[in-house]
């Protein structure tokens, strides 16, 4: 079902208008508080919905139940201490959070990590993506009522976590990235094992495709639900799979010069034109496959050499400002780091998290939908609470 953009806009506008008219003319609606402890909200998001029957007249997401004050805390930490914290922003994409910050500091410090470190960073980055999105692929099923896929997701995620643990010592929150390189090199035999696991990941994707994508009920529940037109997506700053599912062909990994090693692998940017929940699921599913492909290729071509540039123990980052963003599992994540040239940490660090923008579209998107669709839309937008609230 491919709609033109104009059809999408007019469809949504008509739905919203209809809901508004009904609300104004007839019934006294019901205010439903979804959350902050509700199974659909992945933790602690709260959505205040005004309902007419089961139709949402307006919805107001209330976030902040997981606000931990990252931007302030980062100012009170040294550069080396910051990675510990920012690991926990998007707690499923652990390593991927560290990379843009470290790259920003490296740019300020005018140092580049050695080639091998950049390749390894890319490998871990993509593995973080797999560990993150596999859970989404299963969780989407749970939100729509199929309880089994999430158990498969947890099962196959373990393999990836084991590999991360073998290298970094932590199942997640590795805190492994350093300014100027990585903490350690790979253990023996890690590459072969990883390649075997990547095959398992691809099998898992096939399994999900069999379980959910072909399923009539799943398609009925997701196709044409939560349609985001391209223009609106751009205005709200949606990123990642949410943006690519609307037909925007933009992937920071490919489109921006980066010291990381994506340019050495052969992979595709996946897009979809529908912009609905199904497209978002589908794009993420294919992206997981691509990530597995990238990891396999990079392990094959991994250069040898040092993994750490020569760095002093006390980091004194020169005065300056740098913005580095990467294509994280959830979307565009970036750090605007301001350094005052002193011996302590960043003077100011604006953390641009993808989920915050992705969720800010909700008041617009939920108007005129039904309560079950709210769940489908929330699940398909895929947010992590820590990533919204920071």
């Amino acid at each position, binding site marked *: 079902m491919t709609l033109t953009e104009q059809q999408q806009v007019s469809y949504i506008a008509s739905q919203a208008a209809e809901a508004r008219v009904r609300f104004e003319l007839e019934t006294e609606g*019901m205010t*439903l508080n979804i959350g902050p402890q*509700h*199974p*659909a909200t992945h933790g602690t998001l709260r959505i205040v919905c005004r309902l007419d029957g*089961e139709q949402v007249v307006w919805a107001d997401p209330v976030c902040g139940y997981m606000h931990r004050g990252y931007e302030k805390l980062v100012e009170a930490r040294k550069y080396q201490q910051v990675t510990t914290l920012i690991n926990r922003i998007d707690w499923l994409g652990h390593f991927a959070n560290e990379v843009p910050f470290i790259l920003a500091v490296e740019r300020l410090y005018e140092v580049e990590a050695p080639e091998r470190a950049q390749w390894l960073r890319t490998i871990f980055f993509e593995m973080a993506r797999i560990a993150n999105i596999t859970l989404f692929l299963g969780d989407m*099923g*749970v*939100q*729509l*009522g*199929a*309880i*089994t896929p999430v*158990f*498969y997701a947890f*099962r196959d995620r373990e393999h990836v976590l084991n590999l991360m643990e073998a290298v970094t010592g932590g199942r997640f929150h590795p805190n492994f990235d350093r300014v100027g390189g990585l903490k350690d090199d790979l253990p023996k035999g890690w590459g072969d094992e990883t390649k075997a696991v990547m095959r398992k990941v691809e099998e898992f994707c096939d399994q999900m495709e069999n*379980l*959910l994508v072909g*399923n009539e*009920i*799943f398609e*009925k*529940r997701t196709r044409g639900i939560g349609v985001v037109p391209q223009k609106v997506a751009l205005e709200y700053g949606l990123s990642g799979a949410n943006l690519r599912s609307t037909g925007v062909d933009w992937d920071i990994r490919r489109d921006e010069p980066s010291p990381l090693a994506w340019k050495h692998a052969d992979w595709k940017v996946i897009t979809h034109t529908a912009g609905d929940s199904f497209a978002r699921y589908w794009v993420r599913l294919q992206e997981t496959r691509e990530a597995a492909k990238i990891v396999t290729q990079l392990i094959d071509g991994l250069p040898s050499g040092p993994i750490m540039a020569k760095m002093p123990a006390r980091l004194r980052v020169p005065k300056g400002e740098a913005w580095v963003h990467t294509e994280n599992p959830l979307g565009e994540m970036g750090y605007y780091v301001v350094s005052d040239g002193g011996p302590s940490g960043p003077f100011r660090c604006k953390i641009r998290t993808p989920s915050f923008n992705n969720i800010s579209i909700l008041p617009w998107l939920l108007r005129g939908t*039904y*309560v*079950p*669709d*709210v*769940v489908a839309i929330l*699940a398909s937008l895929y947010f992590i609470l820590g990533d919204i609230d920071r």
Partner: protein
Amino acid sequence: MSLGGSLLALAYWQETLLRVLGVLLAVILPAGGFVYLFLFKMMSRMQSRLGPMEAGPYGSLQLLAEVGKFLQKEDLAPEGADRRLFKMAPYIVLISVLLVYVAVPFGPDAWFTDLDSGIFYILAVSSLSVLGILVAGWASANKYSLTGGIRAAGQLIAYEIPMVLAVVGVVIQAGTLNLQQIVRAQAEGEIFGFGAFGNPFILTQFVGFVLFMIAMQAELTQAPFDMPIAESEIVTGYMTEYTGMRFLLFFIGEFATAGAFSAVVATLFLGGWYLPGLSLDANYMNIVGPLILFGKMLLVAFFIFWIRFTYPRFREDQLQSFAWKALIPISLVNILVTGILKVVF
């Protein structure tokens, strides 16, 4: 069971007591068995886990632990709830299940009551549970409960119709509403002159069977029709505010209803307590019959729970349009074709 005057000389109250105990047993055994076998073990197996293992060998005493625990829980009713209705609702649901079992035959003489219009009675009392659910949803003073209750009412009423219509085909073919007679019709029937294994109506009424299974899935509020208790949408629907014993009644009621309906399916479509090759009137069938029926019930329940653990759920409006636009027309056509064939052959 129907130990009626013939076998033992019992006073009326003694017989009644026996029957009540028998129904309770017939409800609780399959319900408990289903919870352990399907909810704990089969679901875990499907999800490549083990399920409960610690309580008893292979976790077989898990259910007893559950009951013991729920007995100890605090019995809460929310502020603003209609307390009398709130406390009553689980019993309504359970009673409707108990009443269904009354008319199911377990053997040539093993039945609680042998109603002439048995299937009609079963369909009627099984819809009583809607009332309990609606009451639970309304009395909880909770928006999620209310939504769940209303969803359940809409859904159960809509799916009553295809269910009844699917049964009509069987009734036409058997020529009776009596469940005992329907079992006999299947045992003694023959398909185009071939009568070695009788005529289980699953073969000749396959469309009716499928329709009945779908409608039953909806009546049981199992996925893909589990909107009334949709966990990710409305928490647990009408059960949201229930604690302790009353929740246990709902919980057991859910599985007991599954047991009751699978007994009905086994009777209507799978030949009931009879297996080809056995004697239809022998006395030993009063012992073997219930076991055969239980085996068939497990088979049916396996399908119910298999689907439940696999499929995502519909949306409320999709569910309604599925019932009215697909199931009901098909079941009408089924009745028409069955009627024509009945007249022709």
